[in-house]
């Protein structure tokens, strides 16, 4: 029973003690339309074709069927999230959504990719993932576009803090101090 509980956690976005604990529904859905390992997901996957380390059929087998606990980094980060596997699957298993859940779990365990950390930092700074540049503001003006509207950064920061993600922001401060 304990083992089952732990593996369920692998498919959840779990903010320990936070206001939201979203448990993905992969496991309950899987019990009604189980994967029979036909391999259509891997057959249609543009990454699997280029890199044998990445295999959505194996990921479904290991994490949905065998309930393994060890997340296979870095291979889960190679997924494009193009969702071709979802279209190919005859059982509606949604392999790319399983990968999203595994990435959430990996992140909780401390494996945060640099580009994602940068995105989060930027969103906390301006509300957008892309910094504003004077050259682009000038181009907007030349093209007759209104100035870029300001985001409500306070509300965005509030949400990020409420979800417990502000812990990922501290590293940047530390890195900058080190520099």
């Amino acid at each position, binding site marked *: 029973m304990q083992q089952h509980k732990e593996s369920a956690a692998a498919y959840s*976005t779990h*903010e320990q003690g936070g*206001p*939201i*604990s*979203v448990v*993905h529904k992969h496991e309950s859905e899987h019990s009604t339309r189980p994967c029979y390992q036909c391999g259509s997901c891997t057959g249609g996957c*543009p*990454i699997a074709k280029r*890199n044998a380390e990445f295999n959505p059929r194996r990921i479904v087998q290991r994490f949905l069927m065998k309930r393994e606990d060890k997340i296979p980094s*870095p291979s889960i*980060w*190679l*997924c*494009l*999230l*193009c*969702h*071709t596997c*979802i*279209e190919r699957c005859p059982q509606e298993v*949604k392999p790319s959504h399983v990968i*999203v*859940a595994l*990435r*959430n779990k990996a*992140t909780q365990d401390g494996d*945060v*990719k*640099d*580009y*994602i950390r940068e*995105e*989060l930092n930027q*969103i906390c700074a301006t*509300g*957008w*993932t*892309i910094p504003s*540049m004077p050259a*682009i503001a000038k*181009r*907007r003006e030349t*093209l007759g*576009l*209104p100035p*870029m*509207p*300001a*985001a*409500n*950064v306070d*509300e*965005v920061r*509030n*949400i*990020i803090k*409420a*979800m417990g*993600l502000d812990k990922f922001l501290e590293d940047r401060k530390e890195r900058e101090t080190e520099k």
Partner: protein
Amino acid sequence: MSGYALFLGCMIPLRLPNMEASARKVLESLDIKLVDMKETSCCPDPVGIQSLDYATWLSLGARNISIAEDMNLDILTLCNGCFETLKTVNEILKKDGSLREKVNAVLDGLGRSFRGKIEVRHLIEVLYKDVGVKKIKENVVTDLTGVNAATHYGCHVLRPSSILKVDDPDEPRILDELVEATGARSVSYLRKTLCCGATIRGISKDTSLDLTYEKIKQAKRSHADCFIVLCPTCFNQFDTGQVELRSSGKGDSSLPVLYLPELIGIAFGMNAEEMGLGLHKIKTKSLLEKVFQ
């Protein structure tokens, strides 16, 4: 309800304002009323932020949707990424009462709430369903016959089709029909629904550009003069990607990349410079010369 709440996102207004300029001009010429949204944020990104934390992704998305609900308008997005996020969040939270309750507990602290009373639409749906191919044809003043276009829909306007419901995920047609309304020909090419590769740039740039290279190779085999895209991420991947591929010694292609409203704008007689076509990295001059020869 009259018109749409315009959700700009990040990449179009902050990096590729030519896409915004052409979209606004074309929609205005077709009498689609746009109301700019205020106080929005990043949609957020369906790849990075969803991979980081699904619950945060839902909450930030729901906050953006709640702003359009206050305006009593459906959302119009110009970008596949914004569309995938906002449409998916909207559909999930409309259906799942328990998730909605949890997200609203977060939004409540901001004095906001997700009510589930609007729809999220992509630019292409508005052009195809609201305006229609017939009206686009009627507005063409510069017939683009002779232009061979490779259409690239992009993943996040098609898949997962059970949620997005825009077109057939394997044999989509609506972009091709809109392109052909201008007189241009939509060429048939292999790997048409293959991803542009952009979403793993930050993880494996080689693999990312390998996908881009495959798309370009197939489009060229079908004698395409240009790519037509619906998304700033795909636009950048093809436009900047070809420069990167050239400098790494892989390929020598310079296939112009046009956002659909840029192509329609040219056909409508709009000034290419005023739409910002000069801002593309892959120059569009040869294509425009072909049109205006």
